[in-house]
């Protein structure tokens, strides 16, 4: 029931994740951040099987950071997406596959906004906007209707607000609000999303 949402606009990418950490019928935490920062211009948001998610995200984060240190360069978004997909595609045919859904947001080569959707099977699609899980059923119609590729960040956040209102209204359990992050040429910043 976790919410993972991403919108790519003119010069930035907006990523939103639900704050609730749920296990069974209980909410164990209301300030859970389901993202990992990979480079100054790239982050992943994740959901899925409880242990797998953080384990896999940490693994990806460590490898990307290791690469950045060794090569003294920031890996671009497309390469990161390829790397994550490769890991997931290998994992699905192993004895213990990672059950993780991932959303990668960033600026490709520090300039071009980039958003990629990856699932536990190793499926990857680059999209203008996307969501994982049930959130997709509630938000895709809104995004299909209102999205334009030439939106600026502010308009993107306005659209995200519409999505949030719909989720608040229709989601059967409280997801404790959204953490919202914007990735643009200045890096990654948190948005206070009332």
């Amino acid at each position, binding site marked *: 029931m976790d919410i993972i949402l991403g919108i790519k606009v003119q010069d930035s990418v907006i990523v939103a994740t639900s704050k609730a950490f749920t296990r069974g019928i209980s909410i164990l935490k209301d300030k859970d951040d389901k993202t990992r920062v990979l480079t100054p211009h790239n982050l992943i948001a994740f959901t899925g099987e409880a242990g797998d998610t953080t384990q896999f995200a940490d693994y990806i984060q460590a490898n990307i950071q290791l690469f950045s240190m060794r090569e003294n360069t920031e890996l671009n978004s497309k390469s990161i997406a390829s790397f994550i997909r490769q890991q997931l595609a290998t994992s699905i045919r192993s004895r213990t596959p990672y059950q993780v859904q991932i959303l990668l947001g960033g600026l490709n080569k520090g300039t071009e906004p980039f958003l990629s*959707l990856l*699932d536990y099977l190793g499926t990857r699609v680059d999209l203008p906007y996307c969501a994982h899980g049930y959130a997709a059923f509630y938000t895709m119609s809104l995004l299909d209707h209102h999205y334009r590729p030439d939106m600026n960040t502010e308009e993107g956040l306005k659209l995200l607000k519409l999505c949030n209102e719909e989720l608040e209204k229709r989601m059967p359990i409280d997801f404790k609000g959204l953490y919202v992050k914007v990735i643009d040429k200045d890096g990654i910043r948190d948005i206070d999303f009332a």
Partner: protein
Amino acid sequence: MVGKDCVAIACDLRLGNQSLGVANNFEKVFQLGHVFLGLTGLASDVLTVHENFRMKANLYKMREEREIEPESFANLVSSTLYERRFGPWFVGPIVAGINSKTGKPFICSFDFIGCPDFAKDFAVSGTASDQLYGMCESLYEPNLEPEDLFETISQALLNAADRDTLSGWGAAVYVITKDKVIKRYLKSRQD
């Protein structure tokens, strides 16, 4: 689909997770040199298998100092898929192209463990394969010119996809002649 000194290969653009349409820009036909590879099935394997064959086609090109021909590529597909006989890639490949030496059009389809079907008229694959067989078998005629072949393959794909809930959301068509490749996107029903 084979025409007169030309071939065409087409795919829809939908990527779905069961009933939910996820993307309408997921192309399933890939160009490797002058050979075209269409892949249906599990999206993850479509990507992996494409990457795999891109690598193999590139290695072939470096070793042989020429691009791989459709006939050789079809055999490569067959043996590569059969290598995974007991843990297969879930894909339904189609190979299409024109032999650069002989100028002969070539198409071939496979099951997911690599059994080749060297058809001389048309080959189909995917969730709408029944519908496609019906359309192709009734619309197809041999020796079509490129423009007529385009219309035939497009009508076959569009009408077949409209009778399959899992297919559609746009389409891409390649018409391949000896010296030219024309790629067109088709507008189609969005439901």
